[in-house]
């Protein structure tokens, strides 16, 4: 295989590839914050990438850049061979902006995201939480969407609560519903943003089990977490971030067992 063909083959196997990502908060203001600095990231199909690092290191922002909830200021994201970047959108062309937003929504329908604080829709029952996007975004008939929603709830063991409202659920149950909601869109990539950080200790295990089951089923995932045991066990590859940069990257077990960077060593020592 030639070098170029090899590059193409790996590129095709990548579900998502981020290149040259920079992100600032309050850009151009006195309190400007450079939260992501020249970050490159690749995730292959079926791979579980774990992202760890101290708070404020840019982990969550990186996830948000991948689905453009926080659009990167520079750089591009290639998802399933399609590249999106905000830089390339002419600022004053309405047509170009609409096209960008349409492509962006297409991205998002295939990228599931699970949030630290669940963000379930409080005015909808569990079933409608899961069925809403399949109906309103994918245009599925209501019946079909509900069947699909129920199947996803079944998978996370929440089918029995289909008619309950989020306020009636425990944190762990809410998060499992949130996972079902993301899965109902049949995503090609799942992003977990500290999915267990807001949970009571005894509820963490159940949610981690769901994520583990997904990994076993071959789902491509990026998992931001503080659960090092989980990272070692489920992560294929691990990225350590600090101050907006990727400091160290490698097979999860290796990095956790024998970190090379001094900063990583320091971080792992502090939390373990």
């Amino acid at each position: 295989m030639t070098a170029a063909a090899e590059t193409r083959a790996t590129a095709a196997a990548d579900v998502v590839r981020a290149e040259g990502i920079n992100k600032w908060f309050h850009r151009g203001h006195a309190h400007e914050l450079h939260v992501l600095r020249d970050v490159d990231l690749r995730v292959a199909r079926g791979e579980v990438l774990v992202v760890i690092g101290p708070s404020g290191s840019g982990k969550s922002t990186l996830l948000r850049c991948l689905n453009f909830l926080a659009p990167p200021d520079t750089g591009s994201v290639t998802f399933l061979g399609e590249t999106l970047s905000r830089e390339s959108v002419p600022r004053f062309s309405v047509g170009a902006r609409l096209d960008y937003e349409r492509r962006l929504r297409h991205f998002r329908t295939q990228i599931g995201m699970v949030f630290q604080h669940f963000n379930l829709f409080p005015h909808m029952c569990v079933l409608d939480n899961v069925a809403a996007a399949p109906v309103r975004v994918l245009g599925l008939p209501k019946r079909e969407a509900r069947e699909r929603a129920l199947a996803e709830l079944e998978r996370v063991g929440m089918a029995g609560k289909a008619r309950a409202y989020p306020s009636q659920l425990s944190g762990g149950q809410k998060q499992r519903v949130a996972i079902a909601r993301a899965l109902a869109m049949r995503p090609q990539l799942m992003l977990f943003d500290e999915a267990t950080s807001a949970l009571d200790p005894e509820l963490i295990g159940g949610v981690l089990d769901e994520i583990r089951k997904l990994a076993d089923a071959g789902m491509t995932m990026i998992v931001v977490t503080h659960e090092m045991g989980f990272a070692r066990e489920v992560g294929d590859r691990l990225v350590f971030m600090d101050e907006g940069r990727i400091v160290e990257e490698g097979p999860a077990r290796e990095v956790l067992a024998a970190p090379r960077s001094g900063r990583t060593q320091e971080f792992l020592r502090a939390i373990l």
Partner: protein
Amino acid sequence: MSALAPGLLGYTFRWSIVPEVMGELAHGVRITLELSGLSVVFALALGLLVALARGSRLAPLRIAAYVYIQLFRALSLYIYVLWIYFGIAAAVGVNLSPLEAGVIALTFLNSAYMAEIYRSALGAVDRGQHEAAFSLGFSRPRAFATVILPQAIRVAVPSLVNQFVDIVKDSSIVAIVGTSDLMGVTTQLVGYYRAPFELYTVLAGFYLSIVLLISAAAAVLERRLQRHLR
């Protein structure tokens, strides 16, 4: 002493006229409900549009909405009714009926207040709700209609109901341009029967009943809407 007596003590209560005028008062109630009902529906819709403009990403829209809100909150309904009914008619030659002028004045004035109510209610919806909707691929309008607005409405209902009550009460001011609403009818009847105490008391009773009915209906609505929220 004797000169004062007829004024103070010579007032004879004539409650017996009340049943006689019930038909006319009932008609007045209908007009008052029509006037405030139409105004509240239009103001709810217009207020939402103004609130959306106020929160728009386009600066000119934001500024226009700000000016609109400040303008209509600055002056009293009394002035607007006169300006619309007499002023506009004289300047542009558009002849509005008193009822139309009343609905327009009440709508504009209250939509400005409602825009502010909507704005704070929309702001009260958690940022995570937007993110969750967007992450699922919702477009802005769809996220707004499906996720954000239903939650904001629940927050806004108590204040919107207060505004509705204010509209009912303020609708009495519109009578100055000659509407035959509850206030207008009563004023005419007072002139005819010379029984101000009885008639204004009945009038107050009617307004009070309408307001209490609205509050009761609102309480039921609020309970239904809040049922599943924390």
